[in-house]
């Protein structure tokens, strides 16, 4: 944690000492995102210059982290899989997953993204968005098997989010051999509402209309 402002260093130190429950309790109260939003995310800002205009929930810094995680977690080079960069994965993440989160949950997640981005600094002297591909993979795998529950939770949770936002897109299914929705394709007719049960001992129904 070199070259950090004192207040950020203190905040990160506090985060590193947190137990899982503390981390979650603190999610709404810590000011890590605010304190790191300019200095620490400078590199992220540079990487996020091409952030799509449709992104409304993620900050440029958060976008850069999640975009980088998408690149690292969903590599398709040399496969028949659809490159995530060819799909609006970040827009899906932003609009379909993050925008619908309750404010406390979203605030906790935003703090988590910042915490995740700063995670490699001690070992690599770099933030997550600055890691090479190999370093980023190693970092994700290390956190997934960390002794610190918040680190495991973030490694699992953030990868799950980008995965959901990717596999939600029907073009990703064809290379898997999955055909998607079938009711229309199979010509299935709706059975509609079930009739009133025989056990209903009411008077004879009056036709509607």
């Amino acid at each position, binding site marked *: 944690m070199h070259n950090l402002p004192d207040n950020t260093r203190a905040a990160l130190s506090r985060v590193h000492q947190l137990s*899982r*429950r503390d981390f*979650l309790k603190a999610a*709404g109260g810590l000011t890590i995102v605010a304190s790191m939003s300019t200095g620490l995310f400078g590199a992220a800002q540079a990487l996020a210059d091409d952030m799509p205009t449709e992104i409304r929930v993620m900050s440029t810094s958060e976008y850069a982290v999640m975009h980088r995680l998408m690149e690292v*977690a*969903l*590599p*398709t080079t040399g*496969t*028949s*899989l659809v490159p995530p960069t060819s799909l609006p994965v970040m827009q899906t993440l932003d609009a*379909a*997953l993050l925008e*619908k*989160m*309750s404010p*406390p*949950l979203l605030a906790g997640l935003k703090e988590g993204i910042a915490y995740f981005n700063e995670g490699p600094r001690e070992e690599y002297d770099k933030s997550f968005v600055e890691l090479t591909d190999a370093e*980023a*993979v190693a970092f*994700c*795998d290390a956190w*997934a*098997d960390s002794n610190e529950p918040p680190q*495991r*939770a973030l490694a*699992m*949770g953030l990868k*799950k989010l980008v*995965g*959901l936002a*990717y*596999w*939600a897109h029907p073009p990703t*299914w064809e290379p*898997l*051999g*999955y*055909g*998607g*929705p*079938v*009711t229309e394709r*199979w010509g299935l*007719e*709706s*059975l*509609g*509402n*079930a009739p*009133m*049960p025989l*056990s*209903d001992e*009411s008077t*004879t*129904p*009056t*036709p*509607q209309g």
Partner: protein
Amino acid sequence: MTQQISINEVPAHGLAVTQAADIDVARLDLEVDAVVIGSGAGGAIAAYELAKAGKRVLVLEAGPYIPSEQFSEMMAVSMDTLYQDHGAQANASGDISVLQGACVGGSTVVNAALCFRTPDYYLELWAKKFGLSNLTPEVMAPYFDKVEANLHIAPNAPHESSPGARLLKQGIENLGLPAGNAKRNIKNCAMTGFCFAGCVSDRKQSMLITYLPWAVAHGATIYADTRVTRILAEGDQANGVEAEVIDQQNGEVKCRLTVTAPLVVVAAGPIQTPLLLQQSGLANTSGQVGKNFACHPTLSITGMFEQDVDNFYGATHSLYMDQNVMPEEGGYLLLDAIQDPVEASFQAEPGTGEPYMAYMSRYRNSVRLITLIHDKNVGEVNWKNGTKEIIYLVDDQDFEIMKAGLKTNARILFAAGAKQLYIPSSQPLTIDDESQIEAVIDGLANEPARYRYTSFHPQGTCRMGADPTSTVVSPSGETHDVKNLYVVDASLLPTSIGYNPSETVYALAHYICDQINQAHA
């Protein structure tokens, strides 16, 4: 007060529902005989039974009304539109996804339609430990008969299976274990495999196409997009609710609603019901509202087969193995489940990047088998700082049950022909050979945020019992503290029951409605 209500025919399709878009006033005051909070398993049955008895019934559902023809058959879209918190509801430590429906019809719209009668073991246990001597197997049997007839609950026909289930059945039989053929509330299953995304062609007999239209035919009125914020009471008598109609497009309150009703039936589900009672400051002299939360945590092992299995169309669930389901016999249940790519994408952790994509590339070769445990009621649900909090950590003894279940799960998958198994841990963990099962599973430690749990069955937060100092709801379904305030959802269950609880809720709801109609004729 009751009045005779004319009975209409049940329409062939659709449901008459008042939605936010239909309301153009800022305030509404309504007066009815009974207000029902929630339109899922318990609420829909209550609406039907009370309306049938001649009461003017109003159903208030916080979620939207999505007609079945609008179901997408895409899991990610369905999670967004049909599930609580858009599918993001979880425990406080974030490692257990707690899935519930949040739409007209509730969880019955998005469940897999599996039905089990409450085992006599639990009815007898509840009588002994919680004074529920009224819920004997003999008393409950006619209620199970009734819902089984009304919801077309029947064992799967031989063809109602899936490619994965057929392999797993062979594996179960190879090990000399009993292969259970599931009962489901489905009529002429079209085998699309989209139970969790809602049944477009209305084969699943959810509340959306059964009890709710029947209730409306008996005169009940349904409001969607309407979130009850407070239950009202005067003295020790419930007398109505306050609610907000929410514009689903922008989340803003469109109308404030006050309902005057001498009878309030809460069926908001085991998370929302205790929260609502806590927010209302009612029915909690026992201090048990929100306590005793259980959720049947599940972990799925994914088996990789050499051949393409294509386990994505078919019956969502069709097979179970319950030899060890009773607490004395182990306390776990194994269930097959097909899955679409979105579900498959978070069931295992093969390693970041290339290992993960290689794993997903073998989607056609994958089959998962779920281990569900009968868990202790060690959690709680609280309304805190303006938001809900589900506090639940898997109990150490329960985790040992999970491990025993995972071992059997793994043995079945190998016996079915799987070549490699993926344990749903945060770090890459596989079992490459049957001889490794004991060592790998024994090496698992009960740690938070280490496994990818899913819960489909939250329960127990307003438990039922005879003792008002230790339970919330009386044996008749009425809260101990507040008269004319009834609960008819899975929050009633005094203990978890090891099996899918939907049929238990259906039967209990019918039973309690009989008590209501007798007390409020």
